[in-house]
């Protein structure tokens, strides 16, 4: 490839070629995009762009009419919508359509002013064009839309939602408890012929999904369905999935799944008559203990984040074809009916256990959940509670739970969780349980956040405050620790610690005789450890020792002691003449753990400025006699 001679470096937006400027306009709300044609001659004729993107955003009209004059703004929005769609349709055809309605300080007005559905509204007879977003969606010019986003926001939302061109960015920590959403979306108004991607945000219900009359497929091409911060009924969700035979990705984020069970099967007529109304209370008594199923036969990527439903019911998920699965939520909230056969990757993030569940049940819930993904190649686990809570100490109990299940294909195992300083045995057993069921894991990553001590009584009401306090506490601890460490370093000529007094012990539980670790003998080549270093004989250093002694084929160990500072100090110290009085606890711990007297630290050249340890050991039956310890790159 012979590149042409270099042009002078562009430093101005107008210097970018047409197609790049148009690519920028494809992310810009249509009103602003259209108005760029008056910027200068350079910008004339760039919009509408060939890609056929139309982004309708009420915030483009935020200044129209002044404060509180909603109707004028609304009319301007719909007029602009009509013109933008007509212009884009004239250019090519509308392929991407995004509608974002911002309710501002009047969230109730979103539904009333922008989403009121009228099946008889006629967009040709009125000069203004549209009366509702549904009219926009039903317009013939939008029939060929491939990607559709419908979103709403209000000033009650978190500020993060202000980002994204018509797409809401949402990240909330706890599951959504329902009773929200700003509008009802009529699914039968959505242009369905060519639609491949549908994103719906902040919606309080999907209506018109179920048509007894039209049994035909509604969305012949739909591949991706993404609901964010919505409140939908299980039935409408199921109808959507059934109506989309090519659906491959189902993404549910902060979705409250509403369940309404029929009183009697024969009472179907009564049920359908009422199914649009807000008649939850009427049915509530009949819901207790019922089981609902969401069946996603063709879905290969399933994302369920912070979703919830009424506690008295159970929702089962049947997704036999799933390959990539991501879950965040309470551990008991999801039941998978059939283990997916071909799952490749699972990311599971379990929130702090719920008030209804005792610690005793937790291991059962955890292992039964995780067992579903025994075919995975990549398994990532994140626990918002101590990892010791999932430990199964009793071999018989473990066998009862797991049976013959082994994660034979698992290549990468990642575990993030808390670890109590005093409860080492539980954490050790938990890690032992994990290693035992993953016989061929090659890459292991453990991220442990040390929590000082388990509180005597869990105060279930104030989880959030607790964790916040913990974090503040840890921050403070880290700072103090840092100062102490710096002080040590400044006075490094003094023998700070006596190396002989420290002994790194084995981890109770992990070195149990009942564990047989196949992976450590033949497969595990890389270990990543992150922990909070408090003293030389801490859990993290014990883990280093454990993997050093038992990992027969280990090649690399990545270690992060919490804040990297110790690495810096260690590096300076070891770089010079070796001393029997190492300057930091970390070095002391590691050297004790590895039972070597001296570590060679190198400063790798180039962009990596961290020290690098080369450690050798004598194990006669392995080919590798040395391996590398690297600081974890964060």
């Amino acid at each position, binding site marked *: 490839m012979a590149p042409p001679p270099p042009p002078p470096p*562009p430093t101005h937006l107008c210097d*970018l070629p047409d197609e790049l400027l148009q690519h920028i306009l494809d992310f810009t709300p249509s009103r602003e995009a*259209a108005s760029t044609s008056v*910027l*200068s*001659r350079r910008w004339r004729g760039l919009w509408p762009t060939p890609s056929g993107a139309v982004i309708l955003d009420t915030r483009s009209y935020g200044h129209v009419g002044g404060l509180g004059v909603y109707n004028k703004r609304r009319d*301007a929005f719909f007029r602009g919508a009509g*013109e933008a769609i007509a212009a884009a349709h004239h250019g090519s055809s509308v392929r991407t359509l995004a509608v974002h309605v911002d309710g501002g300080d009047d969230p109730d007005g979103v539904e009333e002013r922008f989403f009121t559905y009228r099946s008889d509204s006629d967009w040709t007879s009125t000069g203004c064009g549209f009366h509702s977003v549904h009219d926009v969606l039903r317009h013939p010019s939008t029939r060929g839309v491939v990607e559709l986003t419908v979103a709403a926001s209000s000033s009650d939302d978190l500020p993060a939602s202000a980002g994204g061109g018509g797409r809401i960015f949402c990240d909330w920590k706890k599951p959504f408890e329902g009773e929200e959403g700003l509008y009802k979306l009529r699914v039968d108004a959505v242009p369905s012929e060519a639609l491949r991607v549908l994103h719906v945000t902040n919606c309080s219900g999907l209506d018109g999904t179920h048509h007894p009359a039209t049994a035909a497929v509604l969305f012949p091409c739909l591949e991706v369905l993404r609901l964010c911060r919505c409140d939908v009924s299980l039935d409408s969700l199921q109808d959507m999935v059934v109506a989309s035979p090519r659906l491959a990705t189902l993404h549910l984020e902060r979705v409250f799944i509403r369940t309404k069970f029929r009183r009697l099967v024969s009472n179907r007529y009564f049920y359908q008559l009422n199914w649009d109304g807000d008649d939850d209370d009427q049915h509530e008594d009949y819901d207790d203990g019922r089981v609902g199923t969401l069946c996603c036969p063709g879905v290969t990527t399933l994302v369920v984040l912070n979703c919830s439903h009424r506690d008295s019911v159970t929702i089962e998920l049947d997704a036999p074809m799933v390959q990539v699965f991501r879950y965040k939520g309470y551990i008991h909230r999801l039941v998978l009916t059939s283990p997916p056969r071909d799952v490749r990757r699972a990311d599971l993030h379990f929130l702090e256990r719920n008030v209804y569940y005792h610690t005793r049940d937790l291991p059962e819930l955890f292992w039964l959940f995780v067992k579903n993904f025994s075919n995975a190649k990549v398994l990532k686990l994140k626990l918002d509670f101590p990892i010791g809570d999932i430990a199964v100490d009793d071999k018989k109990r473990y066998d009862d739970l797991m049976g013959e299940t082994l994660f034979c294909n698992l290549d990468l195992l990642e575990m993030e969780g808390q670890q109590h300083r005093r409860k080492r045995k539980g954490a050790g057993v938990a890690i032992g349980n994990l290693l035992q069921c993953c016989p061929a894991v090659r890459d292991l990553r453990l991220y442990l956040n040390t929590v000082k001590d388990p509180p005597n009584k869990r105060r279930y009401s104030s989880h959030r405050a607790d964790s916040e306090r913990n974090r503040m506490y840890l921050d403070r601890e880290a700072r103090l620790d840092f100062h102490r460490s710096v002080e040590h370093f400044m006075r490094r000529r003094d023998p700070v610690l006596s190396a002989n007094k420290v002994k790194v012990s084995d981890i109770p539980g992990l070195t149990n005789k009942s564990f047989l670790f196949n992976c450590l003998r033949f497969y595990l080549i890389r270990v990543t450890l992150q922990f909070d270093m408090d003293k030389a004989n801490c859990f993290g250093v014990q883990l280093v020792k454990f993997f050093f002694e038992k990992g027969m084929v280990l090649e690399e160990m990545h270690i992060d002691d919490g804040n990297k500072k110790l690495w810096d100090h260690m590096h300076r110290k070891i770089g010079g003449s070796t001393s029997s009085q190492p300057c930091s606890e970390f070095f002391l711990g590691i050297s004790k753990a590895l039972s*070597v007297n001296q570590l060679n630290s190198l400063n790798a050249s180039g962009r990596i400025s961290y020290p690098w340890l080369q450690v050798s050991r004598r194990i006669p039956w392995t080919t590798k006699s040395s391996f590398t310890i690297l600081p974890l790159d964060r």
Partner: protein
Amino acid sequence: MEVDKGKGEAEETRKVAEADRDTVTLKSSDGKLFEVSKEAAARLSTVLAGMIAGGSIDDNGTDLKQIGSEALENVVDYCNKHANSIPSAALISSSISFNTAPFKEPEEWERKFVDRLSHDALFDLVEAANFLGMERLLDVTCHKISEMMKGKSPDQIREVFNIKNDYTKEELEEIRQELAWAFYDD
């Protein structure tokens, strides 16, 4: 083997390890060298993927005469961030990503990555991403620029990007008539 390893020996081991490391060296128009993970480069850039597959990668630095050192540094930075430090979805050992939609909004780290850039650096990066066929980076950077236009009047946009109005009054009036809806109650 000795437990106490000599420094020289360890140095040697390091060199071997570096040679094994899967990186590509890229050279900017002003001759600066940058190293980037081969895997990330191939995954994120169609052009680099083609060069790697076609064997036109030079060990002493593949010439990218179109790209200045500042932009190339950002490109390399982006690739390395993608390869190493995505906390939520480390894609290291698996190419399966959750980004199945044509464009999902930028992730948190991508936002931060573009937010710290100056205008000039951002435009240069758009060009570089386009030249290297880096679709995701192009989307993220263009999205950032579009956010700067959002909710602004033409005058404000001109001000932000320092665009000079070279229309005559009559021409301007004509366009405004044509696109009256976009200037409604302006």
